[in-house]
């Protein structure tokens, strides 16, 4: 089927209608579309070079100058080599950003940085503020992995570092120093508040230990009881299967059941 290109001629048609007086006033979209005219080339053209890296996408067939595993030199193309595939010439190339690689590296090295709360629009710069990455700290943006990435790119672009890794390292070390400062600040402000009379609730660890301690003390009671029973049995083994013993055993099992329930309650 022929390519249907009528719709894209809307600008020319309207222009003609205006000239001939079919319509008197240009429609609202007229100037906008004139400034951004629709694309009219529909043929797919092969791209021989990768637009991102600039490398050639054409793979020429070259045989290695080495003996293969059969002890022979390969001198002719086989049937597989002769198959011509042009798919790769028409594919859009992948977008590769240096920032993404740095981000991946940073968050692999610092997985706990991901656990910090983050504002989702932080990187989109909706506030319209232009950050100056000659310094790693910014007004209106918290210090995080993104700061390290932007700062290392800045260092690289402004030739303050000779390689990407040294720029990244410098940004990272600056980030560490500030993080240390922030962490101590948080600790000290909690401490200061406590000294001036604030009463904080139990921490997560304290809470856990208290819960654990309750279970342990229950367990301790039970164990003491059981060892007492055991030692009594050892002291007088002849009576261990008497009727009395069976009765105590039964009562013992019920007690055990109670203990379990209690522990389960605590765990819940």
């Amino acid at each position, binding site marked *: 089927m022929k390519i249907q290109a009528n719709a894209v001629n809307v600008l020319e048609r309207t222009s003609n209608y205006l000239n001939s007086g079919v319509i008197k006033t240009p429609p609202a979209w007229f100037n906008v579309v004139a400034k951004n005219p629709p694309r009219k080339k529909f043929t797919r053209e092969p791209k021989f070079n990768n637009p991102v890296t600039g490398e050639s996408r054409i793979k020429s067939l070259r045989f290695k100058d080495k003996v293969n595993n059969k002890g022979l030199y390969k001198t002719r193309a086989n049937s597989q080599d002769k198959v011509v595939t042009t798919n790769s010439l028409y594919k859009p190339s992948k977008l590769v950003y240096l920032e993404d690689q740095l981000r991946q590296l940073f968050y692999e090295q610092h997985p706990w940085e991901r656990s910090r709360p983050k504002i989702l629009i932080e990187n989109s710069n909706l506030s319209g503020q232009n950050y100056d990455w000659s310094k790693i700290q910014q007004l209106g943006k918290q210090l995080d992995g993104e700061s390290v990435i932007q700062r290392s790119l800045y260092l690289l672009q402004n030739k303050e570092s000779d390689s990407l890794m040294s720029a990244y390292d410098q940004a990272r070390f*600056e980030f560490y120093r500030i993080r240390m400062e922030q962490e101590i600040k948080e600790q000290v402000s909690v401490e*200061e508040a406590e000294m001036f009379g604030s009463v904080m609730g139990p921490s997560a660890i304290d809470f856990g230990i208290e819960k654990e301690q309750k279970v342990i003390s229950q367990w301790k009671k039970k164990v003491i009881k059981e060892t007492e029973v055991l030692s009594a049995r050892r002291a007088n083994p002849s009576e261990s299967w008497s009727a009395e013993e069976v009765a105590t055993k039964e009562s013992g099992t019920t007690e055990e059941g109670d203990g379990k329930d209690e522990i389960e309650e605590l765990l819940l």
Partner: protein
Amino acid sequence: MLRNKVGLLRHRSISIRSISTRSLDKCSREKPIPGLFSVQGWQNGCFDRADYYSAQLTSTIKGNEVLQNKSLEELIYECGMSSSKRNIGNYASLLYNLDFAVSSLKGCQMDLPENKPTRDVLLENPDLSLNFNNEPNVTGNTQLQDAIETSFGSMVQFRTLLLNSNLSISGDGFTWLVARIYKPKIQSMSTQVTGEIKFDELFVFNTYNAGSPFTMNKSNIMNNLEKEYKRLENERNSKEDETVTPSKSNTNNNNTPSSYYNEILSYDEVKNIAINDTTYVPLFAIDASPKMWLHDYGVFGKKEYLNRIWNSIDWNVVENRLPQKYEFKYN
């Protein structure tokens, strides 16, 4: 538990007329520590405060012969923990801290800043250097350098921790470098016999306002009060029980966890040992009070002040205060 140590710190007695402060008395008001203070800043930071504190202290202990003959350390230790004598303890502590902080400063080669730091300092990139001009190694204090490196990992880590702890104090306060000493029962037998003071590790910590490293248990004061209250209540209960049914109180005693398996300590008991059975010897202190740095460095100048403090530390003085290292052996 502190008294063993007071010997280290030299006794000073206080009379009504003048409260002697060891290092401040040696300093001249016209000659501030070079590279750190101007004459006015020196007057504001040290002498005005010291004069005020000693005047207050003198007036609070007026007419009390016993307290007047005591050194500052003893005053802090005896009055700091009591609520009725608290003001005495506070003024003694403030005076002692200030004097102690100044005593280990020798000054540095730098000139005083011509322009005070501006708010740009807030967003400044941190300094990444790993070596500093003033380190104990440079002045030949290798023993101190070793102690610091084994306790904190490296000099950089120590410096970062020390200066950041001080930077974080928002009001008045001091950052201390202290050596930890266990009570003799945990130390080896030989220590008990000779009465030597040995430390196992160094620490950095902050005190706020009139806080003192000699009254560390203050941090635990609510727990102690609660414990005391519970003990009294238990005593009262057991007395009541004894009068009514003596046998019941006996069974109660048997059920307390301490009567069984003493080696399993509860969380509270461990906490108690960790807090109550250790003491700390101060090696040096940094004053965080804005009165110290505001005049010469301005509102945004605390970092600059701390950098200069680091360059001004006299490591010889600090090392002289260092007790012997306690060699822990797993026998």
